């Protein structure tokens, strides 16, 4: 499973748990429009760290949080394993 698929699947799971209706997931979707609040993102980052072994927002020195879904996926893809 690609990193992208894993991220999308984790997001769907969290959306279900948080009773959030996700819009169709595509790269240019603004994270504001996902319906996720900061708690949901915190959960996402924690679970992805467990699944992928990385947390790009803690290890990066210039940690700017992404604003679109595409940027979020790239943040994970660009971390050297």
């Amino acid at each position, binding site marked *: 499973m690609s990193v992208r698929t894993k991220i999308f699947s984790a997001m769907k799971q969290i959306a279900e*748990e*948080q009773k959030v209706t996700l819009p169709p997931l595509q790269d240019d979707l603004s994270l504001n429009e996902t319906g996720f609040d*900061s*708690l949901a*993102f*915190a*959960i996402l*980052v*924690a*679970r992805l760290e*467990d699944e992928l072994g990385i*947390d790009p*927002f*803690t290890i990066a020195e210039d*940690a700017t*949080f992404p604003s679109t879904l595409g940027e979020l996926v790239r943040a994970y893809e660009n971390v050297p394993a």
Partner: protein
Amino acid sequence: MSPPDTIALRHYLGEGRKDRTISDARHSVSLADMIERSCLAGRCSELSGRSVLIATSRQLFSALAMIELDGVARRLLLCPPDFGWERLQVLVEQAGIDTIITDQPISGHCAAGRCTVIGIDLPERRIAERTTDHATEWLMLTSGTSGLPKIVRHTLDGLAGAIIAEGPTRHSDATWATFYDIRRYGGLQILLRAVIGGGSMVLSEPGETIAAHVARLQAGGVTHISGTPSHWRKLLMSGAAADFSPRYIRLSGEIADQAVLDGLAQAFPHASIGHAYASTEAGVGFSVDDGREGFPAHLIGRNRDGVEMKVVEGSLRIRSKRTARAYVGADAPPLADAEGFVDTGDIVELRGERYHFVGRRGGIINIGGLKVHPEEVEAVINRHACVQMSRARSRRSPITGAIVVADVILTGGIDEKRHETIRSEILSQCKDSLAAWKVPAVIRFVERLEVTAAGKLARTDA
């Protein structure tokens, strides 16, 4: 010096049945024998007015020394089982110790050089009539969950306050046991119940398996037993509970949630089950025996036993003769406020007619400014029928600073295929009962959770 008003511990030895004993895995000592025999090679009279540190590897020896020296020594300092000799110097200085009683070789320690060192063994030598000429101070160490352990000073009267109030002979035919070490407050309460109440006592043994311990409890005819909720969960998990049928079960030292109370009621249908609130500093506050978590709101205020409780800024405060008298040592902070109330640091919440413990003041997890006590999350998780024990803790988060995650031990024999179902059941249970930020972001199933030497769930990272 005129004799103090207090009754020394050894005066209770002749009460009750003649066959009373105190035992560990290796020896059983007759309490009646203790009346006229010494475990200090007859050197008891030398110790009148001395400040004595008791550091023995076996609990039995500590118990014997306490019984022999109460009313004789000026002060007794009880060292817990995890006592490190490297701390001897500090304790000797802070507590003004001049005598050390031990069953271990300590000649190499410089602090020991300035003290009289006396060995201890099973009671043997006959001794002449002893006099009670001191109201001995009882010194104990706090468990030190936050920072270095502090020395607190109690009196026997204060330590035994709850026992006397209940009517000391109420359980005169009892054989007591505790999962605690008797050099900790919760364990000492049980030793005193046995000695003052006319009963017997079976001590715990470090390193002993649960099965072996339970076998010994049965063989010793234990009827009354106490421990922390973590101790009890461990027993319930072990499967060893089936062969054991105590009449009275007591929980203290941690929050007794509904799940552990129900679990014990199910495992021990013929036992009465009580949970007590006590701490080394605040003494015994109260005990509740209705099988429900928390305590009735009417206990707040002053009760007929002279215990007064109030809730200030969410934390329980207690004033009574059972609280420790003071912290001991140079620069020791005050133990109580100006009015004599001890702030327990335990946060309570009123729900209907009952107060519930929600956690420790220092243990709060801060999730983007919203607070949660790990204990309130655990109480909800523990309600799931497949959960044996859980620990909620903080995990750092780049988004909210921290999030709640939970480590969960499931009951034995659960197929791994069911894990995902159970995980979502626990999550939805949490969602139904807790605010969104208190719901664990991640639930991990683990084989074991660390329990501290004091019998409490380890919360080192909390």
